[in-house]
């Protein structure tokens, strides 16, 4: 990574060189809907588990695109697959399968 001479707090740092194209390809092959998310956050707003734990599908998708898959997995651990998010998604994303697929693809090492 090029040193520009100034620092960022590690939590705000984003290194897109680390973005795993292969895994993202694998994910979008089994659930193409990951590409059409527009990050509106409806899923997070209605989330059943979100009332009690930090969990957000929107953030998880962002995290994957920002090369932070561990954070994405952390975001989805509390999910109960109740399916409210799929009912409200304006893009008609199959959220339950997306959550399962992200967990499947990124937790397999």
């Amino acid at each position, binding site marked *: 990574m090029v040193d520009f001479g100034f620092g960022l707090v590690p939590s705000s740092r984003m290194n897109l060189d680390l973005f795993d194209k292969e895994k993202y390809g694998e994910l979008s092959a089994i659930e193409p*809907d990951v590409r059409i998310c527009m990050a509106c956050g409806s899923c997070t707003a*209605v989330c*059943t*588990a979100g*009332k*009690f*734990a930090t969990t957000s599908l929107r953030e998880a998708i962002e995290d994957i695109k920002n090369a932070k898959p561990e954070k994405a*997995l952390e975001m989805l*651990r*509390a*999910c*109960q*697959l*109740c*399916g*409210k998010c799929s*009912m*409200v998604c304006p893009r*008609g994303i*199959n959220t*339950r*399968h997306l959550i*399962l697929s992200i*967990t*499947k693809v990124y*937790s397999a090492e």
Partner: protein
Amino acid sequence: MTPLFQLLAAQAEVPEVIDRIPSGYSHFVIPFTIGITFFLCWIGVGCVRLLAAIPRTDMIRFWKSLFIPKTIVKNLKDLFGDCLFHVKIWQRKPLLGYMHSAIAFGWFMLIVLGHIEVALFVPARLNVTRGGLFYPIFYRYFVWMNPGHTTLRGSFFFFLMDFFLLYVLSGIALAVFKRFRSIVLGMRHTTKPSLADRVALYSLWMIFPLRLLAESFTADLSGGSFLTVGVNHFWHFLFGDKLWFTPCWWAYSVCLGLFFAAMPFSRYMHILTEVLWILLRNAGIKPHHPRKGVAEAEIYACSSCGLCLDACPMNVQKKNLKYSSVYFIRFLRRHNEKKINTIADKCLMCDKCHALCPVGVDAPALRRAQRTTVNNSLPYDYSYLSSAVSAGHLSGPGRVHPRFAAAEYGLSPAADPAERTDSPVADDTMKPEVMYFAGCMTHLTPRIIKAVDKVFKAAGIEYVFADREGGICCGRPLMLAGRTDAAAKVLEANKKMIEESGCKTLVLSCPICYKIFKDEYGLEGIKVVHYTQFINDLIASGKLKVGMSEEKMVYHDPCELGRGCGVFFEPRAALSQVGTLVKAAKEYDESICCGGSLGSLTLDTRDRAKISESSVANLLANGPDTIVTACPLCLKTFSEAVSNSRVPMPVVVVKDFAEIFS
């Protein structure tokens, strides 16, 4: 004139049937003997392997069940009803029932009667060492009827044999016709046969015409009745005295041999496996693995008839035919992992294929078991559950107790916090006995919550609102996705909360919740009811006053409520008190999933919309003003389908069950 008894005595001395071929053997029996021997070995080994894969506890349960009178009665009823008389097919599609029982029951009777004939006339031949395996099958070839000594008993059997042969032939004719125009027999789609299926199918079709040919050629010697003798006369008319016995008997034997050799790999394995499957099913043993033990019996019991093809709501689009249960089971048989997973994930779990299956194969349960093999090991972290529902603080940290929350909105005077502090003695006695659990989906459709509250108020029911401020999921969606371990955690947390609340009745407005609360939670001393049942009881007991209106309504059976829990009549009974209930084109067991089901993991929005469209069209068959449903998911799906419909549609309102009474 000789008296009858002397005549009978004289006849008894002269044999009616003479062993034409003393060795009781001819080379043409070889193909059949090879086929049937292979088949018997295969089935013997298969049966032992299958039973060995069943866990010990289940096995004990199975053997015990064979001695429980209630199960014995059910076993006998199912064995005779399903395996022999095919009652379920008759009831649904009479023509199909005729076709199937003509072939199956007719053939069964031919085999049984053939053996009885041998037992009566040449009993020594039943011994396996003297050709017992093939002799009764080719009985007519080996014997000679003593002319002038045929008794009434002999003629009776001749008649029966010919009658059942004709019965089978009529069934075969229908079966051949069905290959070309299945719709006439009530099936829009039929299964695409596999290679083994084809071999078995074509040899099965050939067996009976060849049998008629062979037996009619021999009818001169071995006798016959209206059919074989008639055809025999025809041959004489055509060929004079040159009749070809041997080629016909050879062809008959080859077809039989081919059929039995192909049977283990074809759909016809269901003929025998069904017996085992019925016994296992009635013993209450559930599959733990999608392929082993009980599941194997289930897989081989599938007759691949394809009734599930027309049943499946996905099949409004032809491209989805390949995801039907019949193909799922075929790929399970072939261990084709990739295809199994794809098909397992697609299913809506509406359970219609299971409800309509003539063999009772629970394909959705197998799909769930398959999903478990993939999804159960995925990581999860539900540590928050204990805090979410701990000590009655269901509504989460920092929020009001649900009991108080309900009171805040003036829903339940008994739970008023002020009253509670004023009169602490009333603590236990004033506790409402009814608990209402809305569930995730109902929270997305608050109109249901409002309507339920109105109904409860009108009937003077005091209740605790378990998840007013947001509870956790019931666990059913996790279970449907195959995450049984995770579901168990959610289940445990909810169970604790409900048992601690001290309620006596738990009312649910979501059939998905209702199904799991009823089947899996095991809530001791708590009555779990769906709000359709609860409201129906309120009306019946006079607590809720309702008035008749002009409204024409159609009721949609939600999958989990109707087929899942068997609640068909309560909602209809209640609705018929307030309006005219019209029929949908398909209802009860045959109702069509709304398309919004949580069961499917991979079905996309567009395919779902197609299903909703067909489901709405099914409901509108008799021109109702209102579609009534009792499931928040159906309500949302139908509302969207009706308002977004691209095809012109009559004006119709979608309402929830509770809204009708509020």
